[in-house]
């Protein structure tokens, strides 16, 4: 990206407090033109607060918001080229679909012919042409959120802000809406900030994910990186399923988990480490076959169609180790079987030592 082309959106050191609650703590974020960035995190971690600050519905106590390089921190929402879709439908009940979508266009005095074509265009983008004269009570929840999307898109926002727009919908409708949003993003090239607490949704939709934890950004990276290389135990646990184990390293090649010898990638120094291991990367072997790995007993198993989930009770560990095997490989393993859990060395992730050594 060249010097003359500032990022579409920059959030610089934004802090927000509500009384004693620190909702955002020195948050910085830079979003490129046309990117779809998710703000992912558990409920109450400050996602909505940041979105409202970006949209101009609130001003931060510290920090700046820049749109295409221009400082808009104190520009109110109605003068900002950003548009928001709220969690709950906010379709104006006294107006029909057409007038709802035209709401912003009328305020900015778009000429009649253009207004009509932009409303029609927005409606076909969300695949609801022909719904112009409906009122909100004649629409389903999913349709109302599509209208809200169309209403925002008709104004051609510089940044489209979505605050968990699908969270109130049925799972099936929600999956369909995710597909729609990916298509919309491809077709319009709009820069989108998408708030969600659903890691699956964030992984499926985003170019990059900003993972929030208690008002701070824990990690900001593409979905692949977040999943493969979580920067912390929190990141590993929140995005996808993960076993987090404690490994003790006494010297080169002397790593143990729960007292059993294991090999860790990168030959870490002596110390205590957190090791992250995705269940789908664990393989199980009968203990009768010799080899490395953590010995244990299958405590529980759940058949999930394409995969089978196992919980293995391993001596020296306070939590069972979770493993997920392709159903085809899992045929002859049952509860009570003595097994050995193994993984390829590079498949487990060693986080920084708990005592500060690296």
């Amino acid at each position, binding site marked *: 990206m060249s010097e003359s082309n500032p990022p579409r959106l920059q959030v610089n050191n934004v802090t927000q407090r509500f009384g004693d609650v620190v909702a955002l703590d020195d948050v910085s974020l830079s979003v490129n033109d046309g990117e779809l960035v998710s703000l992912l995190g558990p409920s109450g971690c400050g996602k909505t607060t940041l979105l409202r600050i970006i949209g*101009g519905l609130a001003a931060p106590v510290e920090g700046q918001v820049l749109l295409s390089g221009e400082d808009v921190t104190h520009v109110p929402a109605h003068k900002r080229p950003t*548009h928001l879709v*709220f969690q*709950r439908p906010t379709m*104006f009940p*006294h107006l029909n679909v057409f007038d709802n979508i035209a*709401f*912003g266009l009328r305020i900015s005095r778009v000429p009649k012919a253009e207004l009509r074509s932009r409303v029609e265009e927005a409606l076909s983008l969300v695949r609801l042409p022909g719904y112009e004269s409906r009122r909100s*009570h004649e629409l389903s929840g999913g349709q109302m959120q599509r209208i809200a999307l169309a209403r925002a898109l008709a104004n051609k926002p510089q940044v489209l802000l979505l605050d968990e727009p699908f969270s109130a919908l049925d799972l099936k409708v929600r999956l369909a809406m995710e597909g729609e949003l990916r298509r919309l993003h491809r077709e319009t090239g709009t820069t989108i900030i998408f708030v969600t607490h659903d890691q699956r949704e964030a992984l499926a939709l985003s170019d990059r994910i900003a993972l929030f934890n208690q008002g701070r950004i824990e990690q900001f990276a593409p979905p692949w990186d977040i999943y493969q290389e979580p920067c912390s135990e929190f990141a590993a646990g929140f995005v996808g399923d993960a076993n987090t184990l404690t490994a003790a390293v006494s010297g080169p090649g002397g790593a143990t988990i729960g007292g059993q010898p294991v090999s860790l990638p990168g030959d870490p120094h002596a110390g205590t480490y957190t090791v992250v291991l995705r269940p789908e990367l664990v393989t199980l072997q009968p203990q009768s076959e010799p080899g490395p790995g953590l010995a244990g007993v299958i405590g529980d198993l759940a058949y999930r169609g394409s995969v089978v989930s196992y919980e293995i009770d391993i001596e020296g560990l306070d939590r069972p180790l979770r493993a997920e095997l392709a159903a085809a490989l899992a045929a002859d393993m049952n509860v009570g079987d003595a097994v050995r859990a193994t993984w390829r060395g590079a498949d487990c992730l060693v986080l920084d030592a708990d005592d500060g050594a690296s």
Partner: protein
Amino acid sequence: MNASVIARRLRFGPGAASAPGALGLIVFFLAPVVTLLVYSFLTSGRFSVARPFTLSNYDATISAAGTAGAVRNSVLLGVLAAGVAVVVGLAIASWLRYYAGRLQNVVLSMIIISMFASYLVRIYAFRILLGDEGAVNTVLDTLGIVSEPVSWMLFSRFAVVCALTHIALPYVVLILYGAFRPLDPAYLEAAQDLGAGALTRWVRVILPTMAAPIGSAFLMTFVLTSADYVTPQFLGGTGQQMVGLLIQTNFTVAGDWARGAALSFLTLGAYLLCYVIMGLGLRIAKLNTIRWGT
């Protein structure tokens, strides 16, 4: 269907539960109104009515010298008081809904308690407020704004409108506060997000969605204030006849019950007409019923 079946239906049928309600309506609403309606078509004696039936009461009322002026006065005062009450009530109700926070319940209770005070006491309070030695003049004097008391305030239309507005305001606030409940702040934020400044939000979102309750509040307080006949007597100037006073005079001093009744029904008809016109207007604008989402 024989009589015993009808009797059983009446006692045990689905309508049985609503019988007390129907009885209440008949005793308290229908019977007095019908009696008065009959009076208005009878011939008046002194403090009495008798046959034959006639339309002359209506004729005489409409053409009487004082009627037009009284109507003008009533409409003027009613519109002023109800109008001011609606504007101020909108401001108070929206503040309560969107900004008052924890004060909401306290302020609402205060408004309701203010309605408990006797009507007469409240009218007298305005004498104390607006008189030459009253609170308003004292403040103006202390601040050095005036050197002599402002004496036009009391016994004037101004005083009447003040008192009538004061009486109408709690009703307006309660009606509008209830109406504001479903208008979640998120709708207003959505409007702002789409480019609507404060004024535009009022014009394009609040007023249209609140049109029906605003109309009801206005009409209700217009009826309440324009028909008032006590406040003008205590606070009004001389020579400002109002319809309510005319009706009262007909029934008491003049003893012309039939004309009093006729004037009552003309007034009632006028109010009904306003109601119908408002209903039609709202219907044409498609604002008569707003269906809020869940």
